[in-house]
């Protein structure tokens, strides 16, 4: 690791100015749990590291049942799962933030960092997609926003242009009779990278027996986390039964293009998509029925 300059700007404008000036030689530091490791291991290099944790709007969040969640990009995971209201409104996001690393990692690691790092196996991204999150981006020429499922463009790559940074994520208010869940498959029980990850969100009708709408998202089965569009829209109007969960899993398998590596074969990953979609839908439905 070579020496670098350290900057800790106090507002978004100063940060984007620095980003524009240094271009690729600047790296943002949120919790640092990815970037510091990558700099140390020589996977990335920086002349200047820009710590964004001095920017108030980036390290905090606001939530209300009517407006939904505005989540500063560098808010650490523990703040999110420590909030009971959020747990009720966005259970899949809670599942994700609880399993990213261990306690030490969670007290630093942010959802924004997880998203910007753009790992195909990132644990929070499927949950963001399932909950229809929007990414708010600031740059030297103003602000823009994109849907979470369009943020990643390849392994380790995202939509941010030179000078841009992620400021916040917004999640729409929780709908009545809705529930969600995230599960990943790992060979061990902690400290592992998802072989496959799946998040499901459902809204039931008032009877609780049939699915009004649903969203399914997947990790570690393609170069970027995926929104399973066909499987998701198929869910509308289906009964909330085991057979539906299985069928949705089968549909979700159609869009994946996994690789074979030390974490599992392509065939195995494809199979796990079915298993995890089925299991997350089951939990999401249970939560939708009880989470009132």
């Amino acid at each position, binding site marked *: 690791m070579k020496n670098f300059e350290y900057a800790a700007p106090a507002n978004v404008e100063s940060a984007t100015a620095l980003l524009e000036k240094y271009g690729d030689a600047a790296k943002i530091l949120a919790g640092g749990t990815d970037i510091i490791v990558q700099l140390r291991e020589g996977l990335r290099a920086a002349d200047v590291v820009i710590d964004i944790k001095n920017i108030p709007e980036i390290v905090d969040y606001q939530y209300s049942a009517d407006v939904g969640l505005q989540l500063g990009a560098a808010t650490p995971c523990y703040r999110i799962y420590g909030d009971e209201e959020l747990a009720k409104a966005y259970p899949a996001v809670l599942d994700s933030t609880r399993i990213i690393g261990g306690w030490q990692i969670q007290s630093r690691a942010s959802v924004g960092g997880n998203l910007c790092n753009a790992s195909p196996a990132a644990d929070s991204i499927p949950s963001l997609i399932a909950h229809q999150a929007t990414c708010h981006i600031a740059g030297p020429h103003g602000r823009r926003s994109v849907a979470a499922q369009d943020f990643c463009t390849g392994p380790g790559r995202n939509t941010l242009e030179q000078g841009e940074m992620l400021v916040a994520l917004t999640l729409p208010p929780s709908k009545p009779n809705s529930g969600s869940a995230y599960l990943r498959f790992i060979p061990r*029980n902690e400290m592992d990278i998802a072989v496959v990850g799946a998040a499901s969100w459902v809204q039931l009708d008032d009877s609780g027996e049939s699915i009004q709408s649903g969203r399914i998202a997947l990790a570690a089965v393609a170069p970027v986390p995926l929104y399973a569009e066909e499987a998701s829209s198929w869910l509308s109007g289906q009964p909330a039964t085991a057979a539906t969960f299985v069928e949705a899993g089968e549909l979700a398998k159609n869009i994946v293009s996994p690789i074979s590596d030390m974490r599992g074969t392509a065939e195995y990953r494809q199979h796990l998509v079915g298993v995890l979609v089925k299991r997350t839908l089951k939990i999401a439905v249970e939560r939708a029925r009880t989470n009132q």
Partner: protein
Amino acid sequence: MKAATSDEYKILGTRPIRHDGADKVTGKAKYGADVQFANLAHGKILRSPHAHARIKSIDTSAAEKVPGVFAVITANDFPDPQDKIADLGEGPVTLSHLGSNVMARGKVLYKGHAVAAVAATSTHVAEQALNLIQVDYEILEPVLWVLDAMAEDAPLLHENVFTDSMGEASEKPSNIEKHLHFEKGDIEQGFAEADIVIEREFKTASVHQGYIEPHVATADWNEDGQLRIWTSTQGSFTVRHQTAELVGIPLSRVTVYPCEIGGGFGGKIAVYLQPVAALLSRKSGRPVKLVMQRDEVFEGTGPTPGSFVRVKLGAKNDGTLTAGKAWIAFDAGAFPGGPIGPGCMCVFSCYDLPHATVDGYNVCNNKPKTQAYRAPGSTHVAYATENVLDEIAGELDLDPLDLRLKNAVKEGSRRVDGPVYPEIGCVEVLEAVKNSEHWNAPLEGPYRGRGLALGFWFNCGLKSSATANVNTDGTVTLIEGSTDIGGSRTSLAMQLAETLGLTAEEIHPQVADTDSVGYTDVTGGSRVTFATGLAVCKAGEDIQKQMRQQAAVLWDCDANEIEISGSTFSRNGNSISFQELAAKQLQLGEPIVGRATVAPDCSTNGFGAHIADVEVDPETGKTTVLRYTAIQDAGKAIHPSYVEGQMQGGAVQGIGWALNEEYFFGDAGDMKNASFLDYRMPTCLDVPMIETIIVEVPNPDHPFGVRGVGETPIVPPPAAITIAIHNATGVYMRELPASPPRLWKALQEA
């Protein structure tokens, strides 16, 4: 000697706080990485990106010019050992192989093989310099799988390695470095007598010892030519010897200071960094420290062999085994050497087979040079034999425990490699299984199964020294040379305390450097509590002899008239305590220093059985270990907590080996998972509390009956786990690891 019962002892069998405990929990204990000097230079090693390549040239000139670089070395800086063979305490070693592993000479033989090293003001500067070293490689085809490496047309690693087949050398060079053959009885007759014969093939992946502390060494080549080394090692004397040979100086010019050690499991016996740090220090004129990163530990240091094992067993309908045949091929890795001998000797070591043959092959391939790992070789073969035995039990509808009891070795049984067992505890261990709560507890539910497996390790004696100084305040300073990996300081202190009638706290054990204690072999082979313990007991007797003489001066009598009971010396109604006598020693005569050296030439023979309960998720192939019990004959458990700790640690390592751990190689022979993230050792959330049952069948060769305990517990787990998986799912997993993708696939195909 008669079997001692626990209540004969005051100290043995109790659980005093370890002497090094306070320093370890407060972070004061000095590990290799804590070594600091004012003018310390930091080194880094350039490693091969190729698994097999010829080094055409190395240009270090640009690296040498980097500001802050003090020295750059390659194999050319080492003396050429030519054909010299040295006995490094564990049998003869070809120095050119040892040296070429430390720094590649001519060829690189695995990805991660060291090719050059730099010392600089900081590791960052050293890294920068490494990037400027130009190595011109001619890439060669690598060979990794052991059977591929045995093929006639396999890429050849060494022009100068010929197959040693029971003493005869092959005509052509070969990757097959050694072929061993053992036989007993008449194998044809044995199988003819059988009612059932089962033969199966098993494969295991390379796995690493996985010690938490990476390799580390600091060397200071002094202006007077004296070389001092601070390092993490299982044996300071072998480091001294290996380093002296490789850098070409007499061993008396090297002093090795062993630091606290964060695990070794067999992997910290061979030198890697010490000779490199030494030559960097000589060249730079400063002390130089080298610390490996985790990927260097995985890619550059010893895994245990990957293996192929074929086992055939014959039995009568009543379960009596009639014959066994084994064909075993182990990776040697980049250079000759490895545990094929023990593998052959252990494959049938738990069972009394009248007829058996064993063939073993040790094969060079493009993996890091294999090193010892806890009961080296025994786990691989037990995995095979125990699974075949389980299948026989199933076919004959016999209880797997009864089948093992029926065939278990006892005093007088002869192993296939010749030795006849003295008093051993194999049957007693199985009886403890039979009486255990776990074995008798019901296991219900779908996809759940229980597995039982037996394991053996020799446990060796080798050489140890100890000195014990009696202090005038009545305490004793114990100086020994066994680096303490598993609490041995305390186990040794307890043996001295028992001998002298003192408390464990009244003994102050110290692990000394190579100039301060007599020659002591490595902490390995489960030998320390037994063999260094033997030296310590004798040093205690030596103290008693000297103190008896001083008491004789005090009472003006003959030393023979003085009786010793516990810590009391008495004669004719007069008595004096150890403490009082110790206080008077300088008035009564010479300072009291006990000393002893030992060289016990025996195995202490450790048997263990493990019971595993698992549950398999049929949709994902993931195995959860629900309950696990390790049962083992410890001879005499000196400090039961440390015996239990060894049993638990070995079991957990074996569970990792069974379920997830493996070197995952790409097509180019490059390890893809050289990190603790993807080399999946179990975490504390992956295993249940390992239950332990200590059996005590005293070892006749030790005054307290001690047997070694450290290695046996890694032998049964892969067998116990895979047998449990079979009972849960109906599928035998004959390839390790039985990882989720592999087990899922097997369930699909079943």
